[in-house]
């Protein structure tokens, strides 16, 4: 890469986009680590999934457009794809978690008490 090909304002803008997108992804992962139960935890990474991806893609589009001297749009594909698929994954996961919780509580209430001795006491 030749260093003088990109103007200074574009370099500052690309740097701002990259740092903001990485910071959003970091905040999402930190929330994933720190929040208490699953239904709180699934909210955190969607911050980095949607806004962080879009801002990083915008920085990348600006950088390659400035480097090539013409508009380079094909990185928007990643942004559109993540924008469409992230809610689908979240909805499926929340549904799976609800079903699993319900099944676990039903099986816990249904199990016979006192018949089979102490084999379930440790769990």
């Amino acid at each position, binding site marked *: 890469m030749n260093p003088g090909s990109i103007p200074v304002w574009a370099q500052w803008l690309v740097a701002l986009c990259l*740092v903001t997108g990485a910071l959003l992804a970091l905040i999402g992962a930190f929330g994933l680590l720190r929040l208490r139960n699953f239904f709180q935890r699934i909210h955190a990474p969607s911050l980095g999934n949607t806004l962080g991806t879009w801002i990083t893609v915008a920085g990348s589009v600006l950088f390659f457009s400035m480097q090539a001297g013409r508009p380079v749009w094909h990185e928007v594909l990643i942004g559109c794809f993540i924008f469409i698929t992230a809610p689908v*994954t979240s909805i499926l996961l929340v549904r799976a978690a609800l079903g*699993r919780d319900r099944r676990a509580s039903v099986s816990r209430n249904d199990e016979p008490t006192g018949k089979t001795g102490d084999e379930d006491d440790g769990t």
Partner: protein
Amino acid sequence: MSAVLEWAINLSLFMLSLAIAFASIRLLRGPTAQDRVVALDSLYISGMLLLLVLGIHFGHHLYFDVALLIALFGFAGSVAMAKFLLRGEVIE
């Protein structure tokens, strides 16, 4: 490449690596299976952003293709695992 862009690329690489480390901790420690799937989802998104930043660092177009492939296969894997948790089988 100027000092500003180099510094920003290094800082964002560091932050994305930290995000990947947090997601792997949740992946290893997650109490339930759906926690692990969410951690894997967040991990592949962070890895894809890491590849985009590396593509800016090296100024090469090849990293875009790798990032697009990671997005496609990561989505397919997450949906397959969520369907498995939902029904017990992937394709019905």
